[in-house]
């Protein structure tokens, strides 16, 4: 396909087209700034989505080889699949569930509020909730988040009705069908939710917000945004003054190109973004581009996660309807009396038979396992999403010997739980079990964390250059015209799903970049 912008045009180059990169690209394009998004994956449109778990997994997942280490169970059960994220235009907004939650005020100040937690690399964000609030407003409006802007919440499916009945019995107060960026009525040229139940496989009705069919086409229509798919960023180059000059990228046919850039924004999700910076090491940046702090790749967080499935006497048909259909927020408070800092959300979750068999209890077999699968239609399920502790040793590093198809070192993802993560998980299991048993569950199954769908923290924001990689604008401390625009910016993970915060940060960063460019500071 003919390039719109020339390789020698000094455009803004964004690496990645997901919640961060896709939003940033459109925001800049709306301001008249010429922007090229390099997306490693292919461009699959809604017509390419299939209501079929394994084929879609194969079609859109990031499956380039990765290795794992650490004591996390993912490393044992899925040694080459640390994360389940998307390699396609739209990034992980293609397969996300739609949960759009704001961080809580204290979650921006965890070092101050939680104090020193031994073994954890806690740090306050260099921004506060009130800095981000106006951008949360814009993000919710942009994405059409239910429960905001007068948008009605979605109706509850059976899985949610079980959760809600249990929440009432438990005395929980803060539960509902969620702040979801899924249209409950037609809005923004997209239809309303048909309760298809294959949110993780791409929304066939377009009701769920995804940059693929919102930000990206809107940006393209301005004439200022070009998205190049099958364009995997390999290296960011810089000049002798330490300014980045452009991005070397390759396609699946073995061709390589160099796109000049006035500004480069890295938004490849939290494994590829630090990997790219590390692979862009040079004599000026021997430990990786923008890595004077040594924090690039470090502080990898994946949220305290786990799932709980419960079997009832009566049918639930949990697969009917949105994959994530409701939430109990009471446990997301910070309440150290429970034995851990930070909190967790309880969100309904459903998997189809194919995925449930693979993930319910990886490695399990025999009647204990098959009787659970036999009860599939009588199952309800929830996913626990909680704040995990940043640890410097949890990190993305370059593999010592293994290389990818471009000859570049592949990433290793090292992760071990912090004791706080474990204590929170046990509490979550206990509460979820009690909730389900209060409404008659006959059997409750604890499911370990899946390959990570929330990947955060590996190029974190910090007030001081020695503590992190980027400043409060997502601008790297070391290189003025280099930015990070995805969830790898997160200083802490909070207990909330990350997408709304990624989008809010991208809108704010676009304002900053545009201002700086017009002042010739960039």
């Amino acid at each position: 396909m003919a390039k719109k912008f020339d390789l020698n045009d000094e455009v803004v180059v964004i690496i990645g087209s997901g919640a961060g990169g896709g939003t940033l690209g459109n925001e800049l394009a709306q301001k008249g700034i010429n922007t090229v998004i390099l997306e490693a994956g292919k461009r699959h449109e809604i017509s390419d989505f299939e209501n079929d778990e394994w084929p879609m997994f194969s079609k859109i997942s990031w499956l380039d080889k990765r290795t794992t280490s650490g004591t996390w169970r993912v490393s044992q059960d899925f040694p080459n699949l640390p994360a389940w994220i998307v390699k396609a235009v739209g990034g992980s907004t293609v397969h996300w569930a739609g949960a759009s939650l704001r961080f809580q005020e204290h979650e921006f100040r965890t070092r101050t509020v939680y104090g020193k937690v031994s073994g954890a690399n806690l740090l306050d964000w260099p921004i506060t909730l009130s800095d981000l609030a106006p951008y949360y407003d814009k993000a919710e409006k942009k994405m059409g988040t239910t429960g905001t802007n007068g948008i009605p919440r979605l109706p509850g499916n059976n899985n949610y009705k079980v959760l809600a009945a249990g929440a009432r019995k438990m005395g929980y107060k803060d539960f509902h069908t969620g702040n979801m960026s899924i249209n409950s009525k037609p809005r923004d040229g997209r239809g309303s939710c048909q309760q298809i139940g294959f949110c993780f496989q791409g929304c066939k009705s377009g009701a769920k917000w995804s940059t693929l069919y919102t930000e990206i086409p809107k940006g393209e229509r301005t004439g200022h945004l070009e998205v190049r798919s099958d364009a995997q960023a390999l290296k960011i180059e810089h000049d002798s003054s330490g300014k980045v000059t452009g991005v070397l990228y390759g396609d699946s046919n073995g061709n390589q190109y160099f796109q000049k850039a006035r500004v480069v924004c890295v938004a490849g999700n939290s494994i590829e973004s630090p990997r790219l910076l590390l692979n862009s090491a040079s004599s000026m940046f021997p430990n990786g581009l923008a890595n004077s702090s040594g924090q690039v790749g470090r502080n990898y967080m994946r949220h305290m996660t786990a799932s709980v499935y419960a079997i009832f006497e009566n049918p639930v048909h949990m697969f009917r309807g949105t994959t994530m259909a409701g939430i109990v927020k009471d446990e997301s408070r910070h309440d150290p009396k429970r034995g851990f800092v930070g909190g967790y959300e309880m969100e309904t979750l459903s998997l189809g038979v194919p995925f449930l068999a693979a993930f319910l209890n990886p490695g399990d077999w025999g009647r204990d396992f098959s009787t659970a699968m036999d009860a599939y239609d009588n199952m309800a399920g929830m996913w626990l999403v909680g704040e995990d502790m940043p640890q410097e040793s949890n990190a993305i590093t370059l593999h010592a010997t293994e290389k990818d198809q471009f000859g570049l070192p592949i990433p290793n993802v090292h992760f071990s739980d912090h004791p706080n993560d474990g204590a929170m998980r046990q509490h979550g299991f206990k509460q979820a079990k009690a909730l389900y048993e209060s409404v008659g569950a006959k059997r409750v199954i604890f499911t370990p964390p899946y390959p990570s769908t929330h990947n955060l923290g590996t190029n974190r924001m910090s007030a001081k250059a020695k503590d992190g990689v980027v400043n409060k604008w997502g601008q790297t401390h070391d290189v003025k015209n280099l930015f990070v625009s995805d969830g790898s910016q997160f200083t802490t993970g909070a207990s909330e799903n990350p997408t709304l915060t990624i989008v809010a940060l991208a809108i704010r960063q676009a304002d900053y970049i545009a201002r700086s460019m017009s002042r010739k500071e960039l």
Partner: protein
Amino acid sequence: MYKPAEPKRRQFFKIATAGTVASAAGGLPMMFVPNAALAEEALGSDTFNTLVKIARDIFPHDRFGDDLYKNAVGVYAEQAKSDEGVRKLIQEGVAQADSIAKSKFNAAYAQVSNERDRVHVLQSIEATPFFKKIRGDLVVSLYNQPAVWAKLGYQGPSAQFGGYINRGFNDQNWMDKL
């Protein structure tokens, strides 16, 4: 605007996971077009039939006919035919299960009448590359069959039927009567 998907013949498919299939470690399974007859030919009838029995004992569903397990194991057709390493792994793994069954229960694996005894045999080979491969592949090839979904009450693709908004997404009320 949503367009209904074309109906298509169900196929297994190959995950493009160059190098990531660590069969011994139970990593992501590879999947191929299932062909029970070809798999039986490639492995030999005794091996194939014992493998089907092993498959049922790994994931025992009393309501599933043998055909579902034969199809699940039938995904080895191409691999068993063209890859000597895989063929040997399976044949030797089955032979080992037979040998343990004979020494403990005086019968070849498929002739051991008590499921608990057969599970006992499988437990003793649980850590072997053969078992890990079979179990890891079966979890996909058994449970990825629409006939299995129907048995378990999973309705599969829904977009072409208009989703579940008018097909019972919130039809249960028992939880509100508690």
